[in-house]
């Protein structure tokens, strides 16, 4: 627009008219319909409950109950135990998964790596296995009487480890999660490493650094934003862990139906036919996830997004 010597100052008119809004419309419609409306409906459901009027096999009526569902969720020892167990699960899974992914990515990035392509595909393959199948697969490996691992141990004459005992079941379930997730995270970190300019390594070698020092002092700091991003995604998916324990639950006595919060939510919604408690529990879990993600991102903001922010 011509910047004429006008007395009134007007904001420059945006070029293109309403076209941007038309182009945005499909995404906004989808966002509203499939994200905002269900979230709103869940919050609405969590403030209501289905109560029986009349004795015997009386018919149910839905009514407003305020925060009653929330108090019962937060005082439910099964749900709280599940929350704590999930946090412990996260403490085991996230560092091991990222540690292994970083190790593999660094190893595959060394100059004289052999069988690089084969290793990359091999490490990535478990990620391609759907969660339920992977859990069933590991279930067979864990159940003593059908497990080839136990047969192998007994052939050598050693006592077989009990994977599904009360003390080891957490690590066994975590193992399934790590096995499935390492591949994807490794590819992400490997791609980030590929983006580092080679001159950095030349400069480091001139200064006399060996491969290990280059890996720890040059490569890791340079891909720190990628590491933090994968860490946050890993954390968020850990907070929603469901497939692995739910698939293993019918196979053993050591995994209860409320082992992690999402299993409790499933049980309330579908087995106990109490969708209102499930809605309240879901809102609590979602808020918790939001709080943790925001906290971690704020703390690591500078390192995640680079120093130039």
């Amino acid at each position, binding site marked *: 627009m011509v910047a004429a010597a006008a007395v009134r100052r007007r904001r420059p008119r945006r070029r293109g008219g309403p076209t941007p809004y038309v182009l945005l*419309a499909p995404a906004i419609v989808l966002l509203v319909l499939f994200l905002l409306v269900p979230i709103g409906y869940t919050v609405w459901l969590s403030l209501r409950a289905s109560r029986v009027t009349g004795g*015997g096999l009386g*018919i149910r009526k839905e009514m407003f109950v305020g925060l009653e569902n929330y108090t019962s969720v937060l005082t439910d020892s099964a749900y709280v135990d599940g929350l704590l167990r999930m946090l412990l699960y996260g403490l085991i899974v996230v560092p091991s998964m990222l540690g292994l992914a970083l190790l593999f990515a660094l190893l595959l990035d060394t100059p004289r790596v052999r069988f690089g392509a084969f290793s990359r595909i091999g490490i990535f393959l478990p990620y391609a296995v759907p969660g339920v199948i992977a859990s069933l697969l590991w279930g067979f490996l864990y*159940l003593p009487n059908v497990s080839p691992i136990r047969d192998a141990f007994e052939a050598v004459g050693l006592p077989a480890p009990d994977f599904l005992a*009360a003390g080891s079941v957490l690590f066994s379930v975590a193992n399934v999660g790590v096995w499935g997730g390492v591949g994807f995270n490794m590819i992400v970190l490997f791609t980030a490493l590929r983006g580092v300019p080679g001159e950095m390594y030349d400069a480091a070698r001139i200064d006399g650094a060996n491969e290990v020092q280059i890996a720890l002092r040059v490569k890791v700091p340079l891909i720190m934003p990628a590491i933090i991003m994968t860490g946050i995604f890993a954390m968020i998916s850990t907070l929603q862990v469901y497939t692995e324990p739910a698939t293993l639950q019918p196979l053993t006595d050591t995994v209860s*139906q409320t082992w992690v919060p999402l299993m409790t939510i499933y049980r309330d919604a579908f087995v*106990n*036919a109490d969708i209102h408690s499930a809605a309240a529990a879901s809102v609590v879990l979602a808020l918790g996830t939001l709080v943790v993600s925001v906290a971690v991102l704020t703390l690591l903001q500078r390192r995640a997004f680079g120093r130039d922010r």
Partner: protein
Amino acid sequence: MTQQIQRRGFLKGIATLGAAAAMPTFLAACSDDDEQPSQAAGDPNAPANLTFWTWTTNIQKVVDIWNAKNPTQKVTVSNQAQGEELITKTLTAHRAGNAPDLIHAEYQALPVLITNGVAADLTSMAEKIKGDFTDGTWALTSFGGKTYGIPQDVGPMMLYYREDLFQQLGLTVPKTWDEFASVARQVRQKDSKRYLATFSSGDPGWFAGLAEQAGANWWVNDGGTWTVRINDEATKKVATFWGQLVNEGILSGKPMYTPEWNKAMTDGTLLAWPSAIWGAGVLEGVAPATKGKWRMVPMPQWDATPATGYWGGSATAISSKSSQRAQAEKFVTWLNTDQEALDALISEGGIYPAATKGQSSTQLSKAPAMMPNQPSFFADAAQIAQSARGFNWAPNVNVTYSQYNDIFAKAIQEKSDFAAAVDAIQAASVADLKKQGFEVKEA
């Protein structure tokens, strides 16, 4: 200028169309669907397309007979899930507005369906076929004077044991529970890899049947008030008996229906299975290699009076929202009272029908496929069934059953007192019943 007006008009048009399309869905989502349409009227011979959610083995073959005879009234079978899972799916589907016309509901699941408004009131239809079932069987599907399902099969409990392994290890068949305990100890002494049986934390219906045999009465409805007594004397007796044996390692504590259990039943790690009349059908699926090696006898007894409980057994219910009610009623009547249908249910489905016509069927003169060594199987079973007793079910059976899973799994893991576990289930069940708004009287 004209171009801009045209573009703005076009966009406005799109916007109004979008809003108009979204409104009906919004209104539908907000509508209240607690009403039960009364659709007893309707032409039973009008063309129809009925959906039937069921998990009876080979039920497709039985339905094929109907479809051949009634080409305009096709019934489509969908094997969505089994047992408690199917009830979960049915409740969810009903809430979404697309429940199937015909529902396969186990007897303990009917109260759950009724209080959620899923099962239609079938009293008028049941009047017409009253004589086809015993009063005791009608009691399983009737509540508060109304009938909500047509009984399909009953599942009296009996003991299956590996005849070949009993002979090999020199064991005698236990007739009382004390003998059962002593045989269990003998098994462990003679072969430390085998167990006589397992206590499953995954099968609450099985435990309910054992409690029924001992004389338990978990729920009593007295004019609208529920009395809950899951931890009565009889149940605690059963729990303590099994608990002591499991905690000592005499009996296994692993759940049934897992790959490990399948293997244990096949290779003889487990020698006996307290199960129901449909157990032969399950064995066929789970351990087909052991054909001819199992024998069925009455369950071990607590005292001189023979008694047994029920495990499962189901009825067919009709969805309260079905728009093809009359035709559905016609099909359900045929399925559960027609001689040809009952014969097919026995021979293909391996179930023991609830209808009196079915219990005298010629199909019952052959033994089930899995047990050719016991040609008198059904005659023996009919004898046992005469001593079977059950109890009433409350509307929160699903909650009680899911508590059973967790509480007993924990008790087995920690080797704690099973009677205390029963107390915990009682407490949780009463709390949930009260929370839902029912009148509960403390026993």
